[in-house]
């Protein structure tokens, strides 16, 4: 696999790594190869296709919400109105509208972003970037995808039952999400689907954590891992700790719905506690926000040095910042609940902890900006998407402080300002970051290049429209518009916002239409793309230096030994000796190699026995 210039010298002691991960023969049957596959690369593609399907579906729901805010009560044109709203002639009624925004949120978070970002790229990148032949538990990996698939079936089924799918908001607050507010079987199915997909996520999380701890190539210490792997690993830890809390809430809610318990029902109908559910939900829900952004921080933390051709600025600082955010994310959830009647002292503690998160966030931003400074920047498509992510995440992050502060949150809580803010971070940043990853690893996945011009058009249309759409939402919230209103202009104090909402909608449609460029590029590149070579971006990480495009079933013929960090660019010594601006992670400079193997630049600090 690796050509001779890579100069990966085999340690005698490295033999054990080859034996610990023996090469299994390729699966020979179609079913084991493409359907019930245990190969992390195939599972990554399965998650990718499933994620695309739900992204399209969730996106269509978003278009319907935007239509409703631009033209409340008017029939939705195109196939959306004709096919999905046949009964009403295309008009979205208030009950249907509730279903649409509820399912838009749930589908995008659990069935689109999660599989695309974590399912697809976690699976693809972790083994390839750390030099493993597969995940630690390949069969569990397969089960994770098929459990996820089953939950997806439940989601589609929920639209077919009487009274339609869930309608209590993505947050599923009881008592509205109990039979008092949403008596249909659709809501039950959706809560079951959340529980099921949570199990799938858990299987993935166990796998990612174990793989990173146990299967790093010899020589790859924690501080030689690409930041993408760090992001995925920390995400997996948050998933492992907090998805079970959501599952507990979902299970209790199912009992309230189906077995007559009243854990969360109070007032005229029971003596439970609705706020208990909110605690369970947000103990999970706030880490979830970081679950959806940590992998993206990993992507941009790698892409920016990769395409600035410069070492990542204060790599360890970025790692520490990501770890700090991971820890803090677990203790700030109360800012979602300032106005539920929370104890003032508790509220103020949550406010302080929330604001502290801006310190590691600032460290990350400073590191990205410093990395670009005095670099040699190549505005490739993945780099553009990474910079676009920094741009929208900057907007989203900075607007978060208004919501983490109690007194300003009095006014902004539950307004469109919140919606705009969290879409900039969870939707826009996750969307742009994940598309950057798609453009970046496409050559590795399919062995083909994607069209650059189409990619750049796709980027510019997406970044402009996505920014305007979510800033438009923030502006509406700034003027006081509440979330989730079927017709916001019933309120006279909001009537003058009709124009603002309509313009936001036009940009939303442009964002939706702009994705056609990606779809065209995707299929064109898969079927007729130019062949990509092993390392088209000229980078030093193992996925590019030691795996073919696409990689063989067992990834690496010989598991390489790692000597250096993932962003070794612009080293004058490398330039002099090798005539290029990058050094492979598993590469030693010729003089070092001649001098012997004992003085590798990085100490072997893997945890492997």
């Amino acid at each position, binding site marked *: 696999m690796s050509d001779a210039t890579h100069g990966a010298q085999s340690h005698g002691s490295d033999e054990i790594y080859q034996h610990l991960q023996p090469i299994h023969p390729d699966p020979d049957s179609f079913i084991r190869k493409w359907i019930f596959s245990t190969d992390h690369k195939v599972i990554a593609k399965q998650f990718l296709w499933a994620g695309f399907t739900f992204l399209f579906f969730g996106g269509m729901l978003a278009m319907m919400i935007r239509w409703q805010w631009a033209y409340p009560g008017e029939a939705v044109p195109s196939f959306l109105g004709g096919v999905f709203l046949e009964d009403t002639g295309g008009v979205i009624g*208030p009950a249907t509208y509730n279903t649409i925004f509820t399912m838009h949120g749930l589908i995008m978070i659990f069935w689109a972003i999660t599989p695309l970002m974590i399912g697809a790229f976690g699976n693809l990148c972790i083994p390839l970037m750390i030099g493993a032949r597969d995940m630690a538990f390949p069969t569990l990996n397969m089960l994770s995808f098929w459990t996820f698939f089953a939950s997806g079936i439940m989601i589609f089924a929920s639209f077919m039952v009487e009274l339609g799918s869930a309608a209590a908001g993505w947050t599923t607050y009881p008592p*509205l999400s109990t039979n008092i*507010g949403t008596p249909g079987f659709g809501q039950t199915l959706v809560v079951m689907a959340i529980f099921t997909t949570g199990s799938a996520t858990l299987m993935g999380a166990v796998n990612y954590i174990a793989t990173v701890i146990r299967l790093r190539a010899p020589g790859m210490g924690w501080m030689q891992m690409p930041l993408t792997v760090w992001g995925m690993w920390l995400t997996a830890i948050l998933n492992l700790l907090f998805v079970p809390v959501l599952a507990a809430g979902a299970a209790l809610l199912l009992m309230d719905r189906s077995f007559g318990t009243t854990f969360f029902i109070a007032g005229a109908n029971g003596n439970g506690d609705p706020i208990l559910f909110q605690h369970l939900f947000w103990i999970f829900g706030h880490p979830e926000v970081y679950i959806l952004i940590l992998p993206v921080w990993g992507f941009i933390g790698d892409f920016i040095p990769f395409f600035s051709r410069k070492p990542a600025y204060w790599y360890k600082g970025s790692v520490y910042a990501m770890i700090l955010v991971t820890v803090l994310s677990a203790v700030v959830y109360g800012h979602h609940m300032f*106005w539920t009647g929370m104890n003032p002292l508790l509220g103020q503690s949550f406010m302080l902890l929330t604001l502290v998160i801006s310190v590691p966030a600032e460290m990350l931003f*400073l590191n990205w900006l410093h990395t670009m400074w005095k670099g040699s*920047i190549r505005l490739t498509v993945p780099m553009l998407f990474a910079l676009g992510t920094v741009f929208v995440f900057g907007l989203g992050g900075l607007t978060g402080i208004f919501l983490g*502060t109690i007194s300003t949150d009095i006014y902004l809580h539950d307004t469109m300002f919140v919606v705009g803010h969290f879409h900039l971070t969870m939707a826009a940043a996750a969307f742009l970051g994940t598309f950057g990853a798609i453009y970046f690893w496409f050559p590795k996945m399919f062995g083909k290049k994607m069209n650059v011009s189409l990619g750049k058009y796709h980027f510019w249309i997406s970044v402009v429209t996505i920014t305007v759409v979510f800033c438009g939402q923030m502006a509406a919230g700034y003027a006081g518009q509440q979330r989730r209103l079927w017709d916001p202009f019933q309120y006279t104090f909001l009537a003058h916002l009709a124009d*603002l909402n309509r313009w936001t909608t036009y940009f939303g449609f442009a964002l939706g239409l702009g994705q056609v460029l990606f779809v065209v590029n995707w299929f064109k590149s898969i079927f007729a793309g130019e062949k990509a070579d092993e390392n088209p971006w000229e980078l030093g990480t193992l996925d590019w230096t030691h795996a073919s495009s696409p990689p063989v079933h067992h990834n690496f013929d010989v598991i390489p030994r790692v000597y250096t960090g993932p962003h070794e660019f612009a080293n004058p010594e490398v330039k002099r000796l090798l005539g290029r601006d990058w050094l492979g992670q598993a590469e030693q400079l010729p003089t070092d190699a001649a001098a012997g193997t004992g003085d590798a630049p990085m100490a072997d600090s893997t945890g492997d026995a």
Partner: protein
Amino acid sequence: MKVKQWILNAIVGLGALCALPTMGWAAVEPEAEGAWGLFASFPRDVSVDGWRIDWLIEVTMVFVVILFVVMCVWMFWACFFHNEDHEAEYDHGDAHHHVVTALVLSAVIFFIMDGNLLVNSIVDLDEVFWNFELAEKIEGAPRPECGAENSPTDGTCAVRLEVNARQWAWQARYAGLDGEFNTPDDVEVLNDLVVPAGSPVIVQLAATDVIHAFYLPNLRAKMDAVPGMINRLWFRARDEVRGDYEIGCAQHCGTHHYKMRGKLSIVSQEDFKAWIGEASRTASQGYDVNDVNNHWGWSWARGGKG
């Protein structure tokens, strides 16, 4: 506390001066609704204390704009001038002075921007929004002229309101002339609240069915109404304000959430006194012991959660 606040405010003021031209400066004074520019303007503020929230949002917005502009200029500058024709510097950015610079920069931004938010927010909450003692005796001492304890008839004393949210309406209850809740002279209204200008209004909130949120955009007030709990908030309309404002529901509460809209009339103290007197007498005359559905009030919970 005071000194710290002044220092912070001075820094904030300097920052604000630098960035004034970059944003529409919605004033502290009440202004007409309707205009929206880069950022839409707040709804007209008719409360005595809402400026605290507006000011904090606007000042922080200035910081945010400055930081965002710095970030963008930095990024675009690098893309433009440090492009592929520029030779990359071999620098891992982990030298001692790099680390110190990054930490100091992060700390400075944190202490100025977040510190300003934190300090002002806590001061505002302690002094006003969570200060129910202030609401009860607005000048710091009980006033003999308020008459009977809890009496809502004298505009200089706090008006007490019990609000019960249900799908999809706001039920509200005044104590009536006797100042006691759950008595025959309670005044009950639906989606149509009346409060006197200038007086503190203390609201205790409950809900029958699902969670709602009581939202007064023009008074910068908001609180969840949760089944099984009694939450509270208080607000005060300016002395000179009269007119009708809207009550909204801010928490998704089912199919007709969008229609859960009420009216809040702000009237003069004399008009309020006349209205509550008349309504309370009418209520006593029409009181029906057997109409249990109308007896949803509770005895005023002193320790309602804030």
